[in-house]
């Protein structure tokens, strides 16, 4: 393994420390709870938006804390749910009179921890709700889930609820918007290589030199099938079609299209995938209203990509267009 690592146990804290040092005006790091929060937070005049997850998916979610996106992110260790007390303390720190929304991708461990934190902070008198995101169409139940997994599509849920919260929406309204966006967002991914967690030091799963995993999860969980390597356009066909058919997206729809890199794929390849996906959608009468190409929700150093579609209406598109000031968008 060749990685920039000191002590693998300190991988996440050292990353968070670096993130905070690089963004001293906007971010605050609370090492006791792995917490990254807005330096000026919590804003007492809006609903606090908090995302929890394992680490290893950066920039999700610690690098999208900032005005117009998350108020805080509460990560666990690499690919592990945060411990309960981190989430509970985070919820208390982010409490606002307008309430707290905990956003969680649908994985069994995260679900248990966040539901319990919600129950416990509610008992303390904090108004807090939890919203689970499950945009991955590739499999139903999987290694770490009952039901569908939450993957890169959660960026759209985060952006929409955060914009609504900035505009002053109350907690119920923010949840309505989050549920609505989740219900029209669909994703599927493909892995060209396995990923290597720093603490493991070797690839998390076996993938032959000429093999790819269709429908892979963001922790390397199995997807729909293992295939032989094939031309990029054929890969786009195999992962775009299930996404389109699932909602389904159809002639006349206006969508947001995201090509998300899984961590080990050059941006050039992502734009190549984007071009093909955009053209295939146009052929089906589906108009791309907003485009996103880059790394959003990764799986450490895994080579691969996922395609996300969101069905846009006036409300969702307007929320997605609101400004956001986050580390990955700053230059």
């Amino acid at each position, binding site marked *: 393994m060749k990685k920039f690592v000191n002590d693998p146990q300190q991988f996440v804290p050292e990353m968070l420390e670096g993130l905070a040092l690089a963004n001293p005006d906007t971010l605050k790091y609370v090492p006791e709870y792995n917490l990254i929060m807005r330096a000026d937070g919590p804003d007492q005049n809006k609903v606090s938006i908090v995302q929890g997850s394992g680490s290893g998916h950066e920039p999700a979610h610690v690098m999208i804390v900032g005005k117009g996106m998350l108020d805080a992110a509460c990560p666990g260790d690499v690919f592990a749910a945060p*411990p*309960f*007390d981190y989430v*509970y303390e985070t919820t208390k720190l982010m409490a606002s009179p307008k309430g707290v929304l905990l956003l969680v991708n649908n994985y*069994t461990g995260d679900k*248990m921890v966040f539901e*319990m934190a919600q*129950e*416990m902070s509610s008992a303390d008198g904090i108004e807090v709700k939890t919203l689970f995101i499950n945009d991955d169409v590739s499999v139903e139940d999987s290694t770490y889930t*009952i039901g569908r997994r939450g993957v890169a599509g959660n960026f759209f849920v985060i952006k929409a609820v955060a914009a609504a919260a900035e505009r002053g929406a109350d907690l119920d309204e923010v949840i309505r918007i989050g549920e609505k966006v989740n219900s029209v967002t669909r994703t599927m991914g493909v892995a060209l290589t396995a990923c290597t967690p720093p603490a493991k030091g070797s690839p998390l799963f076996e993938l032959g030199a000429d093999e790819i995993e269709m429908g892979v999860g963001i922790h390397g969980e199995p997807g729909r099938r293992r295939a032989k390597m094939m031309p990029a356009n054929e890969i786009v066909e195999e992962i775009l079609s299930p996404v389109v058919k699932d909602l389904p997206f159809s002639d006349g729809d206006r969508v947001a299209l995201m090509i998300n890199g899984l961590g080990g794929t050059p941006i050039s390849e992502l734009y190549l995938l984007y071009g093909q996906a955009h053209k295939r959608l146009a052929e089906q009468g589906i108009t791309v209203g907003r485009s996103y190409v880059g790394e959003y929700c990764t799986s450490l150093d895994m080579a691969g990509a996922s395609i996300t579609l969101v069905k846009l209406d006036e409300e969702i598109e307007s929320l997605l267009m609101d400004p956001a000031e986050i580390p990955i968008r700053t230059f």
Partner: protein
Amino acid sequence: MTATDLADVEFVVHSLASTAVEKEKEFGDLDAVVGDGDLGYSLARGFEKVLADWDSLKRDDVATFLQQIALAISSRIGGTSGPLWGTAFLRASAAAKTVDTIDGTTVVTMLRAATDGIKARGNADLGDKTLLDALIPATDELERQLAAGASPEECRAAFAAKTRECADGTSVLEAKRGRASYSGERSIGSPDAGAVAVAIIVERIVADWP
């Protein structure tokens, strides 16, 4: 709420915590048969924290005390055991909030609240080969004994006996939840580690009752 109520609850929790810490290896070995062997470790770390915090826990009433226990356990137990045991204590705490005294009926209500919490949090039910398969029938038995006018001592003995009987009886079940479920049919023939751990804990509480 009387001082005796709280003293009894403190005794139960302290005995539970001590057993979980002392039996770390035994519980781990039970779990290693079909699970991943971390049950002993998880419970011991969680309840070790309970014992470490023991003197500083708030004791305003039973509900407050149990809420502190819930927090201490779930802060330290990783995986799914933390939220599950934490939820059990949290729900028992909420059930204790509404009563003036902890009598037999209240204990049944608190146990039901705890098992309902585990069901909801773990998405599990009777027959899934979990500790619920010991705890729920034992709670039913306690309720029957109370209705029949049994003495507190008889109630405790019947509760412990039923917990043991049903824990051992999980041998015939196939694991449907938790890490042991990955073993599927191979889990048949061994009892559920969580259920047996609960039986050992309950037997100890009843044997040592002051």
